């Protein structure tokens, strides 16, 4: 295929918020973009996001909030595991991102005065979450999708929808110079040339079987990069949301506002000698369970907060009682009960989420308690990326300068200690020319992500770091595309053809759907809410057995067109490989931090583990090698994360007690209970 030598091209794999934002930025700079997605981009997983997107805003600012405060909250929520310069830059960009989305026509909710409305969200005492009904992700996606369509009509972006990314093409100098992809309709496999490649393929929820994620979120694309030499950062950090609706096919998110409005979490149980024991008929109709046989697990253990304890605590408790056999019907479920509240009030305040519950469970939560269980929700870990701190960061790092958090923060006079906007490596992996944006990028969220910060990080990556892609192509990859010999592309395509032929020829008795189900079961059991050495080792054994069984698999469908059986089986292999660093990372991290909770090492251990986990794939053993990297904490000194101290019952909330920036930072971080996911 002849390639015009004058034209430089960028490939973006993934059309969620991160991929769309990145495509727009690069196309705007004048480079041709080839955009790949498993599904029409408008149907990407980002449409699932409900709650909103965070940014400092004028109202919050006048109450004492600031970009700095947003930065600090994010670090505190993440238990200080994140590199600070990227977070600093992101939070300072957030207000500009909201303005841009607003200009694109996103129907943000409005106040009576026609200003953008704000809601309260976890981890902040200030209203700083912008939202568009209960479908914020969908609305943001559509706005970006529309701009991409506009560039499409101008011939600047070309979409490859229903195409699956199979591997990066890496030349002998270690540079990424394209990809191999497969058309999911015709099953054609071919290579595509590019001067730079952006991976924006989202999270790996399906490694855990059922999750709150869409079915495309297998993590297979990330796994393929990892298998081709890209390092993987903080794999063990997986966020589990406390309240999802268990479904036969998916765990659908149930917003935390249900508890904010008085929802009570309980399980049927019997009290014997002052101890709760599992109920003899745990499946009896909930409304017939006598009051003294209802164990209100959170209210009993956390009298001050009751059902509004922070997410990670609620998750651990619910998970724990089910593990101990208290689950409703003996299964993995607890009640989230709203039936004691007046119907009219529930409809008025919670109409949206009640509707989801009715639609998917077929029951009315105003009549029958909802059955909920924690669900795997988000991966803080992802492909490891680098960045260049802005000019002044070093002075802060060395202690020569320090951020004075007692003065009112003026974003226009902020020191240059975030990212260097002109660098060509922001969010580039260890492979030259291969970038990672969005949930697949391990930056920004550390040990736990605060609600409504993910949409922000996705769009920030695309818009800000998209600029780095432009710099890279301009400076370091001049006409690379045309210069490269065809051989390396052909070899890569051949490799994928071989893999397909091998999968098709397997003739054992195993079924990839069953293997994936079992992988999900073991990963959820041993490597989510509570982890320990024994369990993680058990899981490693299990995954290795599943790998053996995977080799004994056969495909029910060996046809050469639109073969979803093949694509699924291939992805399952990649999920099995990605499970390894998630488990080994967890095993090696002998501490508890954020969402990584190890009762055998219950405390945070900054001395040994204030470090990024880096997993590298060993092609011989097919296992990961774990190493560590120092976390750049030059701006804010890590401090103990203790939400119980920050807020007691009746303590000030954002609406009644705005705090000045002069308050000690630890005290200004609370656990807001309002808002959705």
């Amino acid at each position, binding site marked *: 295929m002849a390639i015009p030598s004058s034209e430089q091209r960028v490939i973006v794999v993934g059309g969620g918020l991160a991929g769309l934002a990145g495509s727009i930025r690069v196309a705007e700079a004048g480079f041709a973009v080839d955009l790949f997605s498993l599904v*029409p981009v408008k149907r990407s997983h980002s*449409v699932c996001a409900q709650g909103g997107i965070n940014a400092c805003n004028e109202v919050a600012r006048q109450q004492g909030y600031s970009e700095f405060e947003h930065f600090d909250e994010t670090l505190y929520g993440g238990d200080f595991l994140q590199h600070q310069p990227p977070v600093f830059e992101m939070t300072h960009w957030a207000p500009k991102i909201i303005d841009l989305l607003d200009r694109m026509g996103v129907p943000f909710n409005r106040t009576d005065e026609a200003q953008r409305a704000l809601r309260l969200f976890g981890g902040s005492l200030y209203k700083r979450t912008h939202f568009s009904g209960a479908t914020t992700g969908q609305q943001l996606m559509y706005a970006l999708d529309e701009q991409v369509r506009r560039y*499409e009509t101008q011939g600047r972006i070309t979409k490859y929808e229903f195409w699956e990314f199979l591997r990066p093409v890496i030349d002998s100098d270690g540079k990424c110079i394209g990809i191999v992809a497969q058309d999911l309709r015709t099953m054609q496999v071919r290579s595509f040339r590019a001067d730079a490649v952006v991976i924006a393929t989202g999270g790996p929820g399906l490694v855990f079987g059922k999750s709150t994620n869409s079915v495309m979120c297998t993590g297979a694309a990330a796994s393929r990069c990892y298998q081709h030499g890209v390092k993987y950062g903080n794999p063990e950090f997986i966020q589990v949301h406390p309240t999802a609706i268990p479904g*036969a096919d998916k765990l659908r998110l149930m917003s935390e506002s249900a508890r904010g409005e008085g929802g009570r979490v309980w399980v049927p149980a019997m009290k014997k000698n002052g101890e709760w024991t599992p109920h003899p008929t745990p499946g009896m109709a909930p409304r017939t369970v006598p009051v003294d046989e209802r164990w209100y697990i959170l209210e009993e253990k956390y009298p001050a907060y009751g059902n509004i304890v922070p997410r990670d605590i609620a998750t651990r408790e619910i998970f724990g009682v089910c593990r101990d056999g208290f689950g409703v019907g003996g299964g993995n479920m607890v009640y989230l009960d709203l039936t004691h509240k007046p119907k009219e009030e529930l409809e008025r305040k919670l109409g949206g989420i009640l509707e989801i519950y009715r639609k*998917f469970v077929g029951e009315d939560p105003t009549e029958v308690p909802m059955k909920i269980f924690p669900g795997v929700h988000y991966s803080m870990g992802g492909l490891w990326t680098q960045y260049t701190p802005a000019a002044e960061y070093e002075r802060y790092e060395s202690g020569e300068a320090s951020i004075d958090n007692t003065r009112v923060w003026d974003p226009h006079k902020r020191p240059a200690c975030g990212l260097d906007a002109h660098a060509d490596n922001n969010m580039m992996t260890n492979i030259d020319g291969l970038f990672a944006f969005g949930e697949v990028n391990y930056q920004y969220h550390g040990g736990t992500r605060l609600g409504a910060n993910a949409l922000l990080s996705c769009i920030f990556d695309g818009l800000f770091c998209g600029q780095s892609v432009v710099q890279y192509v301009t400076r370091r990859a001049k006409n690379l595309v045309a210069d490269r010999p065809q051989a390396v592309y052909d070899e890569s395509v051949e490799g994928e053809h071989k893999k397909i032929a091998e999968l098709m020829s397997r003739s054992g008795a195993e079924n990839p759907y069953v293997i994936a189900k079992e992988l999900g079961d073991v990963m959820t059991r041993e490597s989510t809410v509570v982890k320990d050495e024994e369990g993680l080792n058990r899981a490693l054994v299990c995954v290795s057995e599943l790998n053996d069984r995977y080799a004994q698999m056969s495909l029910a469908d060996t046809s050469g067109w639109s073969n979803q059986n093949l694509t699924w089986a291939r992805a399952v292999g990649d999920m099995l490989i990605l499970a390894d660093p998630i488990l080994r990372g967890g095993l090696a991290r002998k501490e508890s931090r954020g969402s990584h909770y190890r009762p055998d090492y219950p405390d945070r251990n900054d001395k040994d583990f204030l470090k990024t986990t880096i997993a590298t794939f060993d092609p011989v053993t097919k296992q990961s090698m774990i190493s560590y990297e120092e976390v750049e904490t030059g701006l804010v000194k890590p401090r103990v994360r203790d939400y119980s101290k920050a807020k007691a019952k009746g303590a000030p909330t954002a609406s009644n007690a705005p705090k000045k920036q002069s308050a000690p930072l630890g005290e200004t971080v609370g656990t807001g209970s309002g808002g959705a996911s």
Partner: protein
Amino acid sequence: MSNTTTSIAQAGTRTVRFRIKRADGHKKNVRWEEYDVPVTSGSEGSGSANVISCLQHIAANPVTRHGERTTPITYDVGCLEEVCGSCTMLINGHVRQACSCLIDTCAPRDGDVITLEPMTKFPVIRDLWVDRARLFETLKRTSAWVPIDGTYHLGAGPMETPDEQQVRYKLSECMSCGCCLEACPQYLIEEDVENWDSAFVGAAVISQARYFNMHETGASTKKLRLDALSEAGGVSDCGNAQNCVKACPKEIPLTESIAAMGRAVTVHKIKQFFSGQ
């Protein structure tokens, strides 16, 4: 919890029969196959079954009720919560999303039958999977975007009252699923890409044109949209059957949008007539 097959079968309280219209491509080797799928009811087990979870069950056990081994059913799926529009198909003859179609509701009794067919207004890729590219292409025809100046920081967008926002929000919820097109007697399948520019745009796209015309900046390219809707395949192709609005899962007020755009197009044409353009 060993695998899907056994856990569902053991707790299963009844069997639902699926009649599925399969094909190897558009009009290629079209055939019906039947599967018996055990389901648990919503109040027990690990959540209630829906059409997608039954298709997943079949994928793990691709055997027809007559005991013949077949291949997993091919279908389009994404969010599993009725926001992405992927899984649209005909279920018992009605167009809707498979993920939000609960078995307890649509097949409550033992032995109940559920038929699944692909949408008929789009070419079949395989089985229940259709290619809705035309829908997205048609959005280009009507300049369905706000023509911003670029991504540089230029301050906030136009202000908007809560009432205006509520109207736009509703229109913006369109997930391009195509239910309104499947239900519309005027919207016909068109396999030839060359004809997409003159075939009927359909209710969803008319409603999107209204959405962008309502936005202060979007209105600056109002004329382009009205031009497109004045041409062949524009708003005058609508026969006002109102099937579309009944089929829309997001309850988008499509007939209101069609009426509004019909009026706007008329005014636009009169203005053009008097200005001699």
